[in-house]
């Protein structure tokens, strides 16, 4: 096979963000949830520009001839990215400003821009500015040799000043010396919320934004000057600094250094409102940006910081109906899980099911006198999380606790360093990752000494040990005491804690050791078993598919009649539906209220079906540059459940889009084929709700009669 087609990774990502925007644009989604989706689109873009676009820009400079699998040079990609991103941002903000805000207003939740303040509101924000905002502002002058540092991803207001003609300017520290272009920049303070709730007598809820207020009263910062122009803007800078991986014991120090460097990195993206055109040109020149990098918006900008509006009290009709999290029916919240896990494995599907079992499992482990050791990977977790507290307690209770803290978890580094230190103080053995590799696998191992021997309890998950994201990300995890998995878990922890060199595991596959190899082998096996009469069958669900070797293997499989269903939320470099390449491959993507985050892989294997869960996407980054795991689910009823779940994901026709061979995504709709609507997340929720009810109903009906015997 030659001339295989691939989609470009970055453009495919942008289409993912476009699908997120589609969800915001969908009339069926409640208004405040639409606002949330707009915020997600925006913060997604921030991250994308900071990492990917910045990387491409560097690549365009450093490796001129380089082309990706789809045949684009870095420069060609940048051009296409800019074009498509402009389209999406325009759609996003014109929807926000001219559709969503008016709609919210008609629902008595109204945005009041500075120009529309009535007298009372004007007085209110003026006082607020004087008392609470003004003391926090630090105008930066721009007339020094070096342009002032603009903090990454924060809103700023730039002011173009004009000396008042009739007065001699007062000598002020802020006075610009550069008389030709007197410009000052103020960062919108991060310590106060962007959303200001205005007094609203008539039962409406009114709000304005702190940047409106600062723009309005900005002139007060510069006595003796008149504000000629003002511009609200946000800059995204290159954040991908390599850490000195060889710094060994001093890794924390090296990491802190990176965090400092990050403060002064190159800008790659400028988002601004339609204010001063002179200022815009000035910033463009000073920040070294090209026209392609500038995104100017009519109205409110930076949707990523508007989530507070979506969290406004009340307005339940503007939000999703509440979906409760159910405690797994087979577990008793008041009983430790030790006994039940001896008999069977437990599969947990958050957020339909509560994260509670995991928390109580760790809590019980931290207190149980028979527990000897707890080992756990922590990738992104919150510092005050109950998990960290339980680990601390366990260490204080004399258990050996080992925590693998991935300092390199993007954007969380600073937080990670602080709670890692807290753990160490409690006596936890803290391992700060592995040189050159990010530990992305999620695993928990509890060693317990029981009457008839040592027993190991293992929890393996597709999602992070983070009680907050467990409410928004849909993830699967498995509790098991299977000895083969337990052995592998022990060896896995040995490898990542410096106890052992690489050892090959038996049941768990591990990246970068053999995960990719095993995946390829499973695809090849499917090809071997496949014939036109009995085609092979692969179903897989993941966040991103970008590994060329895997994609090529899937193409080969398609040509060998293997039927392949892929549910890929984000990037997909595989081109489906091409003759003699991928005609048996179908790719769909689900975007709904919960972020799809689980990775499930199913292989028909000639009838001896296998099903795996994994922390890894099928991307080179995950398969080659991260420590990841893929583990089999072996208990029959759980396999069946997972297979059904996967099948359900391919039956969704309300929140799914299907990837076309030209790279566009076609939104599925039940009307298309006259089907009844299937919304996978809702079906799952209802399913768990029903089984929880069933449990309630099956509570034994028993009269406890009080009488003397």
């Amino acid at each position: 096979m030659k001339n295989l087609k691939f989609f470009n990774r970055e453009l495919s990502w942008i289409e993912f963000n476009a699908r997120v925007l589609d969800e915001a644009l969908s009339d069926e989604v409640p208004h405040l949830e639409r606002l949330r989706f707009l915020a997600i689109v925006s913060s997604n873009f921030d991250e994308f520009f900071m990492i990917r676009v910045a990387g491409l820009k560097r690549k365009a400079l450093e490796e001129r001839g380089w082309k990706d699998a789809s045949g684009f040079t870095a420069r060609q990609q940048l051009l296409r990215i800019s074009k498509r991103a402009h389209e999406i941002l325009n759609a996003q903000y014109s929807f926000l400003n001219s559709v969503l805000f008016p709609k919210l207003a008609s629902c008595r939740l109204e945005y009041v821009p500075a120009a529309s303040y009535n007298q009372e509101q004007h007085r209110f924000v003026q006082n607020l500015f004087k008392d609470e905002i003004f003391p926090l502002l630090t105008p930066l002058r721009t007339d020094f040799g070096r342009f002032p540092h603009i903090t990454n991803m924060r809103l700023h207001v730039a002011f173009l000043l004009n000396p008042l003609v009739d007065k001699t300017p007062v000598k002020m520290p802020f006075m610009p010396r550069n008389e030709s272009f007197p410009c000052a920049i103020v960062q919108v303070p991060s310590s106060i919320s962007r959303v200001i709730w205005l007094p609203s007598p008539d039962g409406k809820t009114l709000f304005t934004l702190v940047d409106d207020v600062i723009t309005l009263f900005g002139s007060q910062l510069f006595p003796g000057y008149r504000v000629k122009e003002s511009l609200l803007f946000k800059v995204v800078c290159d954040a991908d600094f390599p850490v000195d991986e060889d710094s060994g014991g001093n890794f924390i120090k090296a990491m802190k250094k990176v965090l400092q460097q990050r403060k002064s990195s190159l800008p790659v993206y400028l988002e601004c409102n339609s204010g001063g055109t002179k200022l815009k040109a000035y910033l463009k020149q000073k920040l070294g940006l090209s026209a392609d990098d500038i995104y100017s918006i009519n109205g409110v900008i930076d949707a990523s910081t508007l989530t507070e509006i979506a969290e406004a009290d009340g307005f339940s009709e503007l939000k999703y109906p509440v979906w409760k999290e159910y405690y797994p029916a087979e577990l008793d919240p008041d009983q430790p899980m030790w006994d039940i896990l001896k008999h069977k494995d437990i599969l947990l599907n958050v957020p339909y099911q509560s994260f509670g079992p995991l928390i109580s499992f760790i809590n019980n482990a931290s207190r149980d006198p028979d527990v000897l050791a707890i080992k756990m990977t922590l990738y992104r977790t919150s510092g005050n999380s109950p998990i960290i507290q339980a680990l601390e307690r366990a260490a204080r209770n004399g258990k050996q606790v080992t925590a693998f803290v991935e300092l390199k978890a993007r954007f969380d580094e600073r937080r990670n360093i602080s709670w890692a230190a807290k753990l160490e103080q409690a006596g936890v053995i803290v391992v700060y990752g592995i040189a050159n590799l990010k530990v992305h696998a999620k695993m928990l191992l509890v060693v317990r000494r029981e009457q008839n021997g040592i027993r190991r309890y293992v929890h393996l998950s597709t999602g992070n040990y983070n009680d907050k994201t467990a409410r928004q990300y849909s993830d699967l995890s498995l509790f098991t005491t299977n000895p083969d998995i337990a052995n592998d878990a022990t060896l896995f922890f040995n490898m990542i804690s410096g106890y052992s060199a690489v050892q090959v595991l038996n049941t768990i596959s591990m990246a970068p050791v053999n995960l990719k190899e095993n995946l390829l082998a499973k695809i090849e096996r499917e090809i071997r078993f496949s014939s036109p009469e009995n085609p092979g069958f692969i179903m897989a669900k993941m966040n991103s598919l970008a590994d060329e070797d895997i994609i090529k293997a899937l193409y080969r499989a398609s040509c060998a009649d293997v039927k392949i269903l892929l549910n890929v939320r984000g990037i997909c470099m595989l081109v489906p539906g091409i003759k003699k390449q991928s005609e048996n491959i179908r790719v769909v993507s689900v975007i709904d209220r919960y972020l799809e985050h689980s990775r499930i892989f199913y292989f028909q294997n000639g009838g001896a079906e296998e099903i795996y869960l994994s922390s890894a996407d099928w991307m080179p980054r995950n398969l080659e540059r991260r420590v990841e795991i893929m583990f089999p689910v072996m208990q029959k009823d759980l396999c069946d459940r997972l297979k059904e779940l996967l099948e359900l994901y391919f039956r969704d026709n309300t929140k799914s889009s299907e990837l076309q061979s030209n790279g566009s995504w076609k939104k599925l709709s039940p009307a298309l084929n006259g089907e009844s609507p299937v919304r996978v997340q809702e079906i799952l929720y209802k399913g768990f709700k029903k089984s929880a009810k069933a449990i309630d109903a099956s509570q034994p009906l028993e009269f406890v009669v009080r009488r003397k015997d």
Partner: protein
Amino acid sequence: MVALEAVLEIGSTGIRLMACEITGLGTWNVIDRSEMPVPIGSDVFTTGYVSKETILQCIKILKRYKEQLNGWAIEENHIQVIATSALREARNRDTVLDRILVKTGFRVKVIDGIEENRLMYIAVLDALKESLPTLREHSSVIIEIGGGSTELMLMDHGKMAAVHSLRLGTVIIEQNQQTALRTQKDAHRFLEEFIRNTGVNLSTELKLERIKTFITMGAEILLAAHSCGTKLSDRIFSITRESFFSFVSEVQDYTPEECMARFKISYNDAKLFGVGLLTYKLFLNLTSAEEIIVTDTSIRDGIILSRITAPNAELQQEFFSQIVASARNLGKRYFFDEAHANHVRYTALTLFDAMHKELGVSDHGRLLLEIAALLHDVGTYIRAGDHELHSEYIISHSDVFGLNKDDMNIISQVAKYHRGSKSLYGEAAFSALSRNDRVLVLKLSAILRVADALDRSHSQKIKELIPELRGDNMILRVEGTQDTNLERIALEEKGDLFESVFGYKLLLN
């Protein structure tokens, strides 16, 4: 509560850890395994010393292992730390051991080659449990090629014919290749010659081409088994001769980097992989085995086994009989007078048993006496005159299965004093022994001299010996002959030590 046991093994290429949960008599589950590479072998086999960096590395690893074992709450007396050939040969071994003790609290036991053989034997025996009969049917070899030594056992229909700890290992070969031999081709020729010579020597003990069963263990061959063998049971694999040969030639062309990528091994292991397999191939070529039996076991399993199996009378007996068989083969090699040796063994043991309560010598001491009795005359192979000195030399430079260097040293001393009238005191080798061992040598030689005297004619006239302690006398009643004059004279001559050590007068009836 279930007991846990752990073994740390400081080998030529790395330090390995194994922790087990003992589930019953002689059965266990491995619950933890680790391995970390350290170049002890390449230090020692080039310079003779373990370098400072390597010592620090060892200490760091051992500290990590200590932490790791803490996670299992294994008590200290259930942790065995052993070291094999590399550390054994290191000239600074005492300081290394001391550093390790001071820094980590681990007391390392250095295992000698033949002890390694013994541990390997019980490990293999355990792994092969069900398939043991095949060992009895043919001649077989059990072989492990390590970093610094090759452990080898030849078995003739289930009986130990010879054991050797050869100074041949992958690290040594690799070092040679790097320094003296330069090219891989030269190194291979060197290897081939070495193994051919070894084969010639071994053939005096057992015809190698009669060997049908080729049993191996060790990381390299196990890796090969995973790649080109078939799994027979949990811990046993088989590789056919052809598929092994083609696998070996395939691997010979790999660079270490390719080996790393394909077999997921460290760079150090990758460098040794090809050479290790080639060595197996050359040994396999000496035999007529059609397949390689690979056992997934190690010296660490041997240690665990010897820790946890309660002295099982039958197994112990089997084991002793292997030791005796091995010693007997050593004797045959030097054309010993087997009938005489057997007779001396019989009388010596009879005396020993009769005086059992008086002696204060353990069963192990009895075994040493038995072997000394069998081998006391091997020196006559060189020259009849002063043959006790030649016996001493031969024994102290030979390997007998199941006996370590200290044991062989004692046996050689006992053999040395089986005749002649030299005083033991003042002799360097004797003085070098510990006090306990000196007493043991005295007691055993005293008995051996008497036993030897009782077959002075080398014609086994005495059919039965009934010793009896009466007052200050040890009365030796003999049956089967009236003519004991020669023996009586001999006893006059050689009973001196007995009388002075035990204080009994010997009377031959």
